[in-house]
């Protein structure tokens, strides 16, 4: 390998057989290129789908009240279940270790909303300060509802970006403006953005304010929680399921509902849905791997084909070299050395080129469900090494046969 004379001989050969070298190199480089791009997009899809779900609270577990359909403990069916503030507080206390953020929601129905003379028709509800984290809401202006607002029953609201764009487009900022909600003035303190457009058409106020001023009750319309961040997906799914079961157990008992009454309450678990999507991405990745491996196999076959042709083309030269005193191993060495060198250079060339492409173009890719396609360098390098190794192995046999061929036969070959 470190025989400088042989390196010089190899460079001479390469320099004087540019087309052959170029074609070998091209097939190797393009194989690696295709593989890296494919793997990159496989990862990109995974990133994209992960992002989509993160935006919409992938770890959310919720409960909504309904109407009982079964008789239980002497209570008639048809009873409307009401979740109360105490439910929210007790759950937060009891299942502290399964919960990262929690919020209750209070719907404000039948209220009129006006901005100056303009009448607005948007969803209106109360929520806790942690609603921001449960729903993964990003503030674009001002602030979200905080503990002080909640404790002091402040008459403040945050609005979705779409409302700002529709109603307040003439202003620099809607912050500090007042909305008239059923005759009461609410100050706008923040504007938020969401992944889904409809979720930007909402007006949110503190739960306490909504209950005190609007409904006059301590009832809430939904309970929503997120679980703490888990190391892996399976663990997260299990935790979410545990939280769902805990919620169910507590709420059924507290509200005296038959365990098999499916209409009395409804539970939502986003992770179980996400799991299906994850399965899908895994399949897509698997598919890309499959295509990639096929590409590599094609590359290996290509390299060994080229090796066969190269050896065939050089049979006479090999005969001459042997007549001049080349030993069989030096012939094998010469052919493989050149093959390894060309494969390595072009393989890493293709690798660098495709990685650069992913590096610079990747972040700008804006296809739905594809985000920042990128590739693990280790995987890519391993692939190149595999290609070099298998190309060499495939090339060894024709090289060995050529080295063993009798000189007079090699020289007769035209």
């Amino acid at each position: 390998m470190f025989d400088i004379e042989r390196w010089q001989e190899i460079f001479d050969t390469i320099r004087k057989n540019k087309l052959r070298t170029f074609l070998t190199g091209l097939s190797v480089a393009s194989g690696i290129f295709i593989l890296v791009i494919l793997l990159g997009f496989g990862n990109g899809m995974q990133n994209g789908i992960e992002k989509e779900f993160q935006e919409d609270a992938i770890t959310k577990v919720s409960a909504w009240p309904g109407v009982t359909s079964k008789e239980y403990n002497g209570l008639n069916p048809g009873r409307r279940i009401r979740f109360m503030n105490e439910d929210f507080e007790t759950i937060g206390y009891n299942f502290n270790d399964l919960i990262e953020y929690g919020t209750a929601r209070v719907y404000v129905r039948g209220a009129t909303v006006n901005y100056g003379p303009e009448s607005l028709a948007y969803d209106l509800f109360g929520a806790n300060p942690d609603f921001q984290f449960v729903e993964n809401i990003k503030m674009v202006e001002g602030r979200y509802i905080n503990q002080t607002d909640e404790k002091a029953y402040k008459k403040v609201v945050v609005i979705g970006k779409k409302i700002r764009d529709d109603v307040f487009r003439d202003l620099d900022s809607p912050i500090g403006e007042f909305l008239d909600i059923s005759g009461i003035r609410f100050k706008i303190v923040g504007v938020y953005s969401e992944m889904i457009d409809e979720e930007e058409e909402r007006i949110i106020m503190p739960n306490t304010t909504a209950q005190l001023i609007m409904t006059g009750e301590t009832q809430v319309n939904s309970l929503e929680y997120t679980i703490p961040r888990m190391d892996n997906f399976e663990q997260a799914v299990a935790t979410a399921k545990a939280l769902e079961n805990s919620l169910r157990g507590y709420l059924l008992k507290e509200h005296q509902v038959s365990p098999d009454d499916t209409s009395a309450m409804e539970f939502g678990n986003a992770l179980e849905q996400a799991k299906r999507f994850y399965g899908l991405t895994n399949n897509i990745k698997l598919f890309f791997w499959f295509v990639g491996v096929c590409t590599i196999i094609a590359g290996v076959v290509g390299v060994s084909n080229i090796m066969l042709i190269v050896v065939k083309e050089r049979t006479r030269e090999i005969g001459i070299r042997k007549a001049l005193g080349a030993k069989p191993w030096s012939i094998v060495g010469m052919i493989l050395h050149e093959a390894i060198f060309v494969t390595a250079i072009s393989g890493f060339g293709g690798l660098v080129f495709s990685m650069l492409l992913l590096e610079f173009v990747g972040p700008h890719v804006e296809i739905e469900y594809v985000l920042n396609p990128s590739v693990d360098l280790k995987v890519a390098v391993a692939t190149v090494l595999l290609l070099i190794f298998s190309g060499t192995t495939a090339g060894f046999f024709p090289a060995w046969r050529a080295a063993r061929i009798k000189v007079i036969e090699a020289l007769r070959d035209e």
Partner: protein
Amino acid sequence: MIEIKDLHKSYKMGSNSLHVLKGINFKAEKGELVAIMGSSGSGKSTLLNIIGMLDLADTGEYVLDEVPIKNLSETKAAQYRNKFLGFVFQSFNLINYKNAIENVALPLYYQRVGRKERQEKALNYLDKVGLKEWATHLPSELSGGQKQRVAIARAMAAEPKVLLADEPTGALDSKTSYEVMDLIQNINDEGNTILVVTHEEDIAHMCKRIVHLKDGVIVEDKKVEQVRASEYVQ
């Protein structure tokens, strides 16, 4: 220098076997210039290839410079070819992508001579065959006679004990043939042992001894008055 006793060689072709050499006995001393003659298919090339260790005899003894050539591994044979023998072929057998000097330097590469020394030696031998100015030309840019002179320079560069030439003038016109023979005579004058296979009488008479092959045996072996090729070359 060369000693051959009762050498046999046959080629197998399917179920048939063609007995080409049927008991060759031959000796050549150092400094001889021997022509091997015979009609086409008489086994001249076969004999030369065995002497050159490019092919193996079936039975018989072969001693080259007091070294018995028998049961050689490929590697050993390659070593001996490199150290002891130089070849000149009818079809030149130059490597087409290497220029003249690189072709001449190639046997030295296999002798593990350093690059710089290789270049110097190769240029020196190219000079001897009168092609110093053509050192960087590819074989495709040379005439037939020039190619054969490059091939002779290459064969001599390794400083072999024996130079083997199989119809070296077979592809050349008579004027060029004499130039090549002149070169071979000069090399012989310096004391080198040379075997030349030919079927041309005039070429054979430019050697010092003629061996005649027929039906697989040597039928005639005579010393001749050497005709100097330079008489025909201007």
